[in-house]
C-alpha cells in the first residue's frame, strides 16, 4: 500500500497544535510566576536571568507534557498499524486504519513515534524525581549524623558509601537490575529499608520540634504514620487498599537500584555541608541552650544547607533521567515495549542505517529535559551565591 505523507510545514503546525494544553498551561504558569516574581523568593529570582527562564520553561514544558500526555498523543503508544512500519514523518494513516497522521513517522513495530515520545515523558517524570527524593531522604538521614558526630559513625558510614561509589554505575545496574534479583526478592528488601527512611525522617523531624506541644505532636506523628504507612504498603508490598499507588516488581527493582546508586552521593554532600555548618555560632548557641543533637541537625543545620542541596537535587534529577535512559538502552528492568526514551533510542539505534527518524524524537526529548534541569541548577546556584 502506498502511504502518502504531508509536508514539513504541516507536520510542524500539527505538532505545535497538539501541544495546545501545554502552551496554555505554560503561559498561565510562567505569566503568573513572572508577575509575582518579587514575592516568590528563590523561585522568583530565577526569572531575572535568561538561563533561569530557559531552565524553568523547559522543565515546565516536560512537566505539563507528562500531565497532559493523553490529550496530546494522537495514538496509543503501544498500538501497531502494520501498514505504517517505518513510515516516514508525516505519514497519513489510511482511513481503513482509523485515519490520523504519524507526525514523526512510525517505528520498526509500526507504532507512532510522536505518541511514544509523549508517553515516555510520563515514565521519566514520575520515576526520576521520586527516586531522587528518596535518595535525598536516605542520604540526608545518614549524612547528618555522620557529619555532626564524626568519629566511628562517620568512618563506618563513609566506608559503606565509598563502597557503593566505587562500583561503576553500569556494573551496579547489571548486577542489581536482573530477573534473577527480582526472583530472589532482593528489591523488596532494599525498598523496604530505603522507604523506612522518609518515615523515620519525618517522625524525628516532628518529634524534636513539637515534643513539648502534645496537641500538634500527635497530629503530625499520626499523619506521618498514616500517610507513610499507606505509601509504604502500596509501594513495597504492592498492596494498596485503595488501589491508587502501585509499583510492579520490575519498577520496584529499578526504583530501588536507582535510590541505592544515588544516595551515597547525597550522603557525601550532606556530610560535607554539616561538617562545615556545625562550626557556626548558631549551632554553638543551640548546643548551649541544651537542644538535642537531632534537633540541631534537623532544625538548625539542615535549613542552612538547603541552597547547595536544592542545586544538587536539580542536577540529580537530570542525572537520574540519564540513568533511566541507560537502563532502557541496555534493556534492563523496563518492559521491552515500554515507551520510555531510553528503550526507544535502543530500538531505533539498531536500524540507524536504514531509518533515521525514529531515533531523533526520544533523543532530543531526553537531551532537552536534562538540559533544562542543568540550566535550572546553574541559575539556582548563581542566585544562591548572591545571597
Amino acid at each position, binding site marked *: 500500500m502506498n502511504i502518502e505523507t504531508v509536508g514539513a510545514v504541516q507536520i510542524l503546525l500539527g505538532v505545535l497544535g497538539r501541544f495546545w494544553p501545554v502552551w496554555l498551561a505554560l503561559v498561565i504558569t510562567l505569566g503568573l510566576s513572572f508577575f509575582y516574581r518579587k514575592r516568590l523568593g528563590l523561585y522568583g529570582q530565577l526569572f531575572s536571568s535568561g538561563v533561569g527562564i530557559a531552565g524553568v520553561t523547559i522543565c515546565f514544558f516536560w512537566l505539563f507534557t507528562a500531565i497532559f500526555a493523553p490529550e496530546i498523543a494522537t495514538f496509543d503508544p503501544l498500538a501497531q498499524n502494520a501498514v505504517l512500519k517505518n513510515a516516514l514523518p508525516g505519514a497519513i494513516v489510511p482511513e481503513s486504519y482509523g485515519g490520523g497522521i504519524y507526525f514523526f513517522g512510525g517505528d520498526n513495530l509500526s507504532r507512532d513515534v510522536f505518541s511514544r515520545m509523549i508517553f515516555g515523558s510520563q515514565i521519566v517524570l514520575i520515576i526520576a524525581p521520586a527516586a531522587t527524593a528518596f535518595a535525598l531522604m536516605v542520604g540526608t538521614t545518614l549524612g547528618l549524623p555522620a557529619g555532626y558526630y564524626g568519629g566511628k559513625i562517620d568512618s563506618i558510614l563513609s566506608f559503606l558509601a565509598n563502597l557503593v561509589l*566505587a562500583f561503576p554505575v553500569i556494573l551496579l545496574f547489571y548486577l542489581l537490575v536482573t530477573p*534473577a*534479583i527480582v526472583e530472589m526478592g532482593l528489591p523488596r528488601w532494599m525498598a523496604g529499608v530505603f522507604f523506612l527512611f522518609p518515615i523515620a525522617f519525618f517522625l524525628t523531624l516532628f518529634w524534636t520540634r513539637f515534643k513539648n506541644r502534645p496537641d500538634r505532636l500527635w497530629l503530625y506523628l499520626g499523619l506521618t504514620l498514616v500517610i507513610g504507612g499507606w505509601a509504604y504498603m502500596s509501594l513495597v508490598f504492592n498492596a494498596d487498599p485503595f488501589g491508587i499507588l502501585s509499583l510492579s516488581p520490575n519498577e520496584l527493582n529499578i526504583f530501588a537500584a536507582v535510590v541505592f546508586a544515588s544516595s551515597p552521593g547525597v550522603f557525601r554532600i550532606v556530610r560535607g555541608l554539616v561538617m562545615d555548618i556545625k562550626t557556626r555560632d548558631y549551632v554553638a548557641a543551640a548546643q548551649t541552650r541544651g537542644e538535642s543533637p537531632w534537633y540541631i541537625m534537623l532544625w538548625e543545620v539542615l535549613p542552612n544547607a538547603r541552597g547547595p542541596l536544592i542545586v544538587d537535587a536539580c542536577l540529580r534529577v537530570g542525572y537520574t533521567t540519564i540513568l533511566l*535512559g541507560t537502563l532502557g538502552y541496555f534493556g534492563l528492568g523496563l518492559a521491552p515495549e515500554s515507551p520510555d526514551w531510553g528503550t526507544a*533510542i*535502543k530500538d531505533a*539505534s539498531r536500524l540507524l*542505517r536504514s531509518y533515521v527518524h525514529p531515533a531523533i524524537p526520544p533523543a532530543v526529548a531526553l537531551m532537552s529535559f536534562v*538540559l533544562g534541569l542543568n540550566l535550572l541548577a546553574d541559575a539556582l546556584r548563581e542566585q544562591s551565591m548572591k545571597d
Partner: protein
Amino acid sequence: MLSFVLRRLGVMALTMVALTLVVFLLVNLEPNLKKLAISQTESRATIEQQDAWLERNGYRQNFFVRYGQWLGVVKKQPNIDPATGEAVSRFRFCDEAAVPTYSGILQGDFGCSTKFRVPVQEKLFPALRATGILMFWVMVTMVPIALLVGILGGMREGSRTDRSLSVASIATTATPEYVSGVIFAVIFASWLGWLNGSAASATTQGVTFNNFTLPVMTMAIYGIGYIARMTRASMVEVMTQQYIRTARLKGLSFRTVVVRHALRNALIAPFTVIMLQFPWLLTGVVIVETMFRYQGFGYALVEAAGNNDIDLLLGCSLVSVFVVLFTQLLSDIGYAYLNPRIRVQ
C-alpha cells in the same frame, strides 16, 4: 607521605575484598546457577541431574570456600568422574588441574568464560587492550579541549565568551553517550557519509580515522562539559587571587599572567576531576562499545551479563572496581603532590 600511601593501599585492599564478596554473591545467586546448570547439561536434563551437575562441579560448596577458591587462597578440588576415576574439567573448553591446587585470581586464573568458550584471561586482556586504545584517544581529545574551554571561560569571568562556553558545557553534560552517539551517527554516517557508523573493523583491521572518530567523539563530548566547568571554576578562583593582581600591576601582559601565573595553579583541581572521571568513562565505554560494535571491555561486560557468564562477569567486575579504586588513589596522591599546601606530613 609513605605511610599515607600505605594506609590508602590498605583501605583499598579492604574495599576490594568487600566489593568482590558482594559481586561474588550477586552473580552466584540461585537463579543464575540454575540457568548455568541448564545451559551446561543436556536440554532434557531433569532438575535432579541439574542439581547433580552443580554438586559435582563444586557450586554447592560453602559460599566462603568458593570465594576463597576464586580468590586463590583455598585449594580447588578436582572434579573426579565416578565412572573412570579420572579428573574432568568443569567445562570442555578450559583445562583444570587434576590435583587440588590453589588456582584463583591471585595465581592469575580467572576461571572459564562459558559464552566465549575460552579461559577468561584470554578474552579479558585483549578486550582491555582494545579499550585502552579507545581510552587513549578519548583522553587525548577530551582533556586538552576541556582544559582550553575552561581556561578561556574562566580567565574573564562574566564575559560573552564565558557565558557562551558555559552554556555549551552545560549542553554537553546534558547529552549522554547514547543520545550524542545516535545524533552523531545520523549526521556524520547516515547523512554526510563522512565517517563509519560502526567501529567493528577497528578490532580486525586496526584503528583508522574513519572507523574510530565517532566512538571517540561520542565519549569525549560527555566528559568535556564537566571537566571544562571544573576548570572554569578553578580558574575564576585563581584569577581573583592577590598574586595575579600583583603580576598585573607589575606590568605583565594579560597573556603572560594567564600562562605563567594562573594556569599552573588553576590546573590542580581539574587533575583530580579528570582522575575521578574514570568510573563515569567506564559507563561510557560500555555504551559506546555496544553502540559502535567495538570488541573491548564494555562489550565483554555486556555479553557476560547478558549470557550469565559467571566467571567473565566476575573478572570484569574485578577489573572495573580495581580501575576505580586505583584512580581514586592516584588522584589523592597526585593532589597532595601537586598542591604543596595540602601535602601530608
